[in-house]
């Protein structure tokens, strides 16, 4: 889908890397080689009312501070919709609620854990924090959770039903779910990303918030020029062909892309799908991020944070580089998929271009 006017005017992330204070962009990164990676949380007392936040789990707090900063960056505009993508929702509260349900034999349950465990809690709490009476809702579409939220936000801006939409992503890890995911060998394969030995990927978490607007500002970080989601590749088509036609629609060719950001996660059965894409963009700088941010249903949201920041600062983060072609990042192609499904293409460009 070719997009006319969608600008990223506000952006913030609380992740396993120092993204909230943005020192990650200056090369400050955290070693993610431990059991599973927990978000680097800011001092919430500086941002949230303690009376209101006492009920919130870590994920809700992470999401609220990310949203608060993103809105502030966009000059405090009131979003006309708040859309959140989450794969598993507020797990900490879900576990609390279900444990209490079993322990108390389905009676006398604490209402707080139930209220906070519902998937729309994050969007709802953001709306309450900023007194926003517009729509707020949530997508839980596995690896398309954030992507669906972003698609919805873009469509709202494009059909001119809104001018500003706050799009969020949030997922957290708790020990019990980590052990289940590990048994399933879903995200914690700790195999090596091709071309760079010693880049294990484990399960990550965090919250990302992005204010997208149809209004271009001097402070806009980047522009989303094209966006496409494909659950599976159509028969008789190749990923290379799909990417070429996606770029052609935006009047660009493969050689116009300065930087690509790939969602490789260290799992050989997943990363083999990126090989043809790497071969396609031989002239572009190639970056990865999941070895630093971890994998989750909404890990791809950090690719959007990273891309917009790279376009804004024109700086490539050395720890993300697979191959560097020394090109100034004006056009970035973000590609994510999971084991041959859930393909997402996004073309982000410099606002000046």
């Amino acid at each position, binding site marked *: 889908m070719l997009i006319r006017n969608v600008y990223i005017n506000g952006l913030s992330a609380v992740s396993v890397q120092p993204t909230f204070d943005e020192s990650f962009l200056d090369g400050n990164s955290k070693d993610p080689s431990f059991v599973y990676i927990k978000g680097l949380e800011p001092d919430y007392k500086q941002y949230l009312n*303690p*009376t209101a*936040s*006492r*009920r919130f789990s870590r994920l809700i707090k992470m999401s609220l501070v990310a949203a608060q900063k993103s809105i502030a960056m966009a000059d405090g505009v009131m979003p006309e919709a708040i859309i959140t993508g989450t794969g598993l929702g507020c797990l900490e509260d879900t576990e609390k609620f279900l444990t209490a349900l079993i322990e*108390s034999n389905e009676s*006398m*349950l*604490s*209402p*707080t854990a139930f*209220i906070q465990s519902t998937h729309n809690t994050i969007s709802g709490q953001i709306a309450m924090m900023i007194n926003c009476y517009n729509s707020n809702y949530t997508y839980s579409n596995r690896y398309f959770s954030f992507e669906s939220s972003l698609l919805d936000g873009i469509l709202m801006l494009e059909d001119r039903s809104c001018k500003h939409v706050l799009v969020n992503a949030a997922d957290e890890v708790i020990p019990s779910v980590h052990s289940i995911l590990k048994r399933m060998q879903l995200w914690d394969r700790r195999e090596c990303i091709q071309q760079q030995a010693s880049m294990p990927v484990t399960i990550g978490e965090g919250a990302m918030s992005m204010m997208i607007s149809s209004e271009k500002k001097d402070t806009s970080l980047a522009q989303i020029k094209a966006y496409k989601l494909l659950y599976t590749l159509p028969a008789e088509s190749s990923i290379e062909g799909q990417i070429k036609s996606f770029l052609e629609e935006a009047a660009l060719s493969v050689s116009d892309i300065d930087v690509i950001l790939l969602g490789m996660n260290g799992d050989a059965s997943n990363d083999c799908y990126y090989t043809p894409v790497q071969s396609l963009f031989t002239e572009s700088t190639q970056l990865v991020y999941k070895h630093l941010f971890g994998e989750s249903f909404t890990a791809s949201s950090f690719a959007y944070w990273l891309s917009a920041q790279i376009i804004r600062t024109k700086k490539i983060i050395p720890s993300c580089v697979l191959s560097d072609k020394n090109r100034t990042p004006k056009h970035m192609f973000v590609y994510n998929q999971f084991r041959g499904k859930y393909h997402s293409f996004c073309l982000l460009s410099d606002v000046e271009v």
Partner: protein
Amino acid sequence: MNQLITELKKEIIYQLNLQDITPESIKDDAPLFGEGLGLDSIDVLELIVLLQKKYGIKVNGAEEGKTVFFSVKSMAEYITAKQQQQQQQ
């Protein structure tokens, strides 16, 4: 009664996850809602569950709830009265 009041204060702080508040900083007869601790309607539900779970006491209706949950002291008085009633039965 004083022992029950102290116990209730600790339970309220723990159950409602009140930040930077100690049992000593809660006055026995200060209102729990509005000006006092600033509790809200979700906290009422938590306190109802607390009374039922820890003391085996059910609050009958919203009107009774207003009186019972006015302060820590009123909660303690209600619990004591209900426990005495139960013993007599």
